[in-house]
C-alpha cells in the first residue's frame, strides 16, 4: 500500500516537474525567437502596396454663396493646402485628385492613396475658405471603388 502510494506521489511530482520544464523551455525558445527576429529586422512589417481610396465629402457654406465655389477652386484649395502641409513629396506620394464635384450640391469625391487617409482628413479640416466663401469641409465616407463612392454621394 505504502509502495503504491509512494509511486503515485512520485509520478505526480515527476509529471509536474516535466510540465514546469516544458513551459520554461517554451518561454525561453519564444524569447530567443523574438530576439533573433528583432536582430534580423522586424519581419512582421510588410511592404504595403498603396491602394486607391475614394473619399466622399460635403462642403458647407458658413458665410457666402456656395454657387461661387467651382470645381477648379476646390482643386486649387486642395492642392495648395496639401503642399503647405506635406510638401511636394507628400503630394506626389498621396496623389490626391478631385474625381468628381457636384457644384449644385457642394459635394464631391476625392481620390488618394490609402496610406495618406489621416493626412487627407486633416487637410480637409484646414480648408476654411474657397474663392472668398467661408466653408467647412465635412468628410462623409471612404470607399474602395469609385462606383461605391458615387452611390454614397447620391445618398448624402
Amino acid at each position, binding site marked *: 500500500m505504502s509502495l503504491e502510494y509512494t509511486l503515485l506521489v512520485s509520478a505526480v511530482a515527476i509529471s509536474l516537474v516535466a510540465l514546469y520544464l516544458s513551459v520554461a523551455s517554451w518561454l525561453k525558445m519564444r524569447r530567443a525567437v523574438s530576439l533573433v527576429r528583432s536582430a534580423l529586422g522586424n519581419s512582421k512589417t510588410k511592404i504595403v502596396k498603396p491602394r486607391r481610396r475614394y473619399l466622399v465629402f460635403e462642403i*458647407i457654406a458658413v*458665410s457666402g454663396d456656395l454657387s461661387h465655389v467651382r470645381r477648379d477652386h476646390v482643386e486649387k484649395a486642395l492642392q495648395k493646402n496639401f503642399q503647405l502641409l506635406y510638401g511636394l513629396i507628400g503630394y506626389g506620394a498621396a496623389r490626391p485628385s478631385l474625381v468628381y464635384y457636384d457644384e449644385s450640391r457642394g459635394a464631391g469625391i476625392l481620390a488618394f492613396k490609402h496610406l495618406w487617409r489621416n493626412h487627407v*482628413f*486633416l487637410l480637409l479640416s484646414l480648408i*476654411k475658405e474657397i474663392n472668398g466663401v*467661408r466653408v*467647412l469641409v465635412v*468628410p462623409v465616407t471612404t470607399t474602395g471603388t469609385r462606383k461605391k463612392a458615387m452611390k454614397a454621394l447620391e445618398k448624402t
Partner: protein
Amino acid sequence: MVADLCFKGVVDDNLVRYALRLGYRAIAYCGASSTELVGGVKLVPRYELKRDDVSKSRNLRGLRVLVVRSKDDLKAYPKLAGSIDAVRIDFAQLNEVNKGFLRRLIGLGVPIEVEFSELVSRLLSSYSLDYYYLILRLYTRKKIRIYVCSGATDLSSMVHPTAMFALISVLGVPEALAAKAIFKVPSELISNVA
C-alpha cells in the same frame, strides 16, 4: 457620444445645427450656466480654474479644468483629487518641464486637454511641438490620459472629429489610442459631469 469639451465662442441655434451636422452630441463651453439639451446637443458648463480657485470648485456643476501655467500649479497634487475633471497646460507660459512636473502630472490621474486649433497653429507657424510630442508619447505609453478638443471660437473654426483623430494619428499616436482620446474620454467626462 462625440463631445467637444472646449468651445470658446458663443453657442446659438445656428452653431448647434452645424455641430449636430459635424457629429457632435455635446459641447462644453464657458458661457453655459447649467446643463441643457438644445436641438439634440447637450450644452455643458465649462470652468477654467486657476490653482487658487480650485478649493472653491467642489460645488461647481460642469467640466472643471485646471489651467497649469507654472510647475508650482501642480504642487500638492493629491489635494486636487475630486476638485477638477481635467488639466489644461499652457505651454506658452510654461517655460520648464522637468521630471518633477511630469511625476505630478502622471500622479494627478486626470485627463490632459489637447487643443486642436492651438496644435495646428503651432504646426503651421513652425513653433516647437516638443511639449506636445512629450504629452503624446506619455499617452502612447499609457502613463497619462488625454482628450482632444477643437478649441474653436466660432462656426468656421469648428472641426470634424475625424480631423482631430487624424491629427494625433499623424503625430504618431496609434489609431486605437487616438480614437480613445477623441471619442471615449470626452464622453466619459461628459457623462460624469452632466
